[in-house]
């Protein structure tokens, strides 16, 4: 298979001269083979990153990535694209910081512009409790080697002039500021990884739904799919909201409940904020996309849901919270709203683990904050799948922590917007 033509300024110039007739498809659409060394279920960011690092770090390229819908059409295409690593607990800080670090050079590595924009992420402290919590996180981050600082209200106003510091209900007392955090183009992350995987000879099979997991002697042997059976040595389930459904096919249960999380964007307006702001007390977060739309997220719905639709009153709560924080957006019209199905674990931390079924591995439970973790998650999951045992990044995220009570309690540490 010929290697992909590199994207560059010269390539654009060359193609301009010949009506852009020379571009390749970014990834190949090949039929499914009867057998693979590794099958990854789920061609979202995490699944594709897992496959990419299996190839890059471990030389495993006889890999298929199966996708029920279309590539990157689940939560990868439905999030608010925030990247940060200012977590309290050491295992979380390690994996999210690994991801953030990989994001910095991902465009160059994949030769695909993921539009990583380290514009800075600010988490507002609007109660004394929250202020103390973020001061604690800033100290923890200093020990973990994650660069964050706690800044006062004046600096908050300087970084984001459109914030109402004196707020009607909750004045801004300061913020946890991570200057190296930011955003990236979510679709491009999936597309860039897909292009690189396809280039390594991996097969990305879209519109292929898994309908059963085959096993013998306590080990996985293959899958039943809507495109027929396929054999594999190792299986990775990387399907976010539908993890419980696939685990049921594989014969085990997960500590996961799936709920809807919504996001929305406004009509595009002129540049007015160049940082990401999360206001967790009033419960909303916002950034401005390069197109000028305000990208808005808030709280998850409170009940099990697989419909990718959320309740209207959550949008109302989120928008109310943000109008309070940014009074100038009060007359903005909202352009689009959508929902994704997020997999919430008991301690609100992810699962990267072996499972009761041999050679079957699971990467799930990223809940409401998976996008920021994609490269680190793929890196750690690839190591877990290649070696059969977790490396240092994944070690604390095993399924056994629920049995043994070793929680990574970010539901308290990170507040709500996780």
């Amino acid at each position: 298979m010929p290697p992909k033509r590199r994207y560059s300024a010269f390539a654009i110039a060359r193609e301009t001269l010949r009506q852009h007739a020379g571009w390749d498809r970014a990834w190949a659409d090949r039929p499914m083979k009867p057998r693979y060394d590794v099958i990854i279920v789920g061609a979202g960011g995490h699944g594709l990153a897992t496959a990419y690092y299996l190839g890059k770090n471990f030389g495993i390229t006889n890999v298929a990535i199966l996708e029920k819908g279309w590539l990157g059409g689940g939560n990868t295409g439905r999030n608010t694209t925030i990247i940060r690593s200012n977590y309290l607990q050491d295992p979380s800080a390690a994996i999210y910081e690994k991801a953030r670090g990989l994001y910095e050079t991902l465009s160059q590595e994949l030769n695909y512009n993921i539009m990583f924009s380290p514009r800075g992420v600010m988490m507002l402290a609007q109660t004394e409790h929250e202020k103390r919590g973020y001061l604690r996180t800033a100290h923890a981050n200093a020990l973990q080697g994650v660069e964050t600082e706690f800044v006062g209200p004046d600096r908050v106003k300087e970084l984001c002039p459109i914030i109402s510091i004196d707020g009607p209900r909750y004045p801004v007392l300061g913020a946890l500021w991570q200057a190296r955090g930011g955003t990236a183009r979510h679709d491009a992350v999936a597309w860039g990884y897909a292009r690189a995987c396809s280039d390594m000879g991996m097969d990305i099979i879209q519109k292929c739904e898994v309908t059963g997991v085959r096993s013998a002697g306590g080990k996985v042997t293959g899958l039943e799919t809507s495109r027929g059976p396929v054999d594999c040595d190792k299986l990775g389930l990387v399907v976010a909201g539908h993890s419980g459904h696939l685990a049921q096919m594989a014969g085990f249960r997960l500590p996961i409940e799936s709920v809807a999380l919504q996001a929305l964007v406004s009509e595009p307006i002129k540049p007015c904020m160049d940082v990401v702001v999360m206001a967790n007390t009033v419960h909303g977060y916002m950034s401005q996309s390069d197109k000028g739309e305000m990208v808005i997220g808030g709280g998850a719905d409170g009940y099990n849901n697989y419909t990718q639709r959320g309740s209207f009153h959550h949008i109302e709560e989120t928008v109310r919270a943000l109008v309070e924080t940014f009074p100038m957006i009060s007359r903005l019209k909202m352009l689009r709203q959508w929902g994704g199905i997020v997999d919430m674990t008991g301690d609100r931390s992810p699962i990267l683990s072996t499972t009761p079924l041999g050679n079957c591995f699971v990467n799930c439970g990223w809940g409401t904050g998976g996008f920021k973790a994609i490269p680190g998650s793929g890196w750690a999951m690839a190591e877990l799948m290649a070696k059969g045992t977790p490396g240092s990044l994944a070690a604390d995220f095993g399924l056994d922590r629920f049995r043994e009570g070793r929680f990574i309690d970010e539901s308290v540490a990170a507040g709500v917007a996780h």
Partner: protein
Amino acid sequence: MLTLTCPYCGLQADETELHGGGEAHLTRFGPDSSDDEFEAYLFLRQNPRGVHAERWRHVYGCGKWFHALRDTTTLQVFGTYPAQTLTPPADLLKAAGVEPAA
């Protein structure tokens, strides 16, 4: 907006009046139980794509906990029933198209 009828006070309550309590009919385990039993009770969930028996509390109403049978893929509600019930009532299961044994 999800609307459930509280089986105690009889009101049709919008979800803003209610609080979800997760999967219903879990077997509780107390002291002297094994780690596996505690894990199953506290954390492991069916999380089905389909019919789900779940707990709700009428927080901004009568305050009572009750149960509902609902489909997580269509959001159809088959009915609600009192909390003092170990399994969903047969008529609701029939409405949901589920065999009572399941």
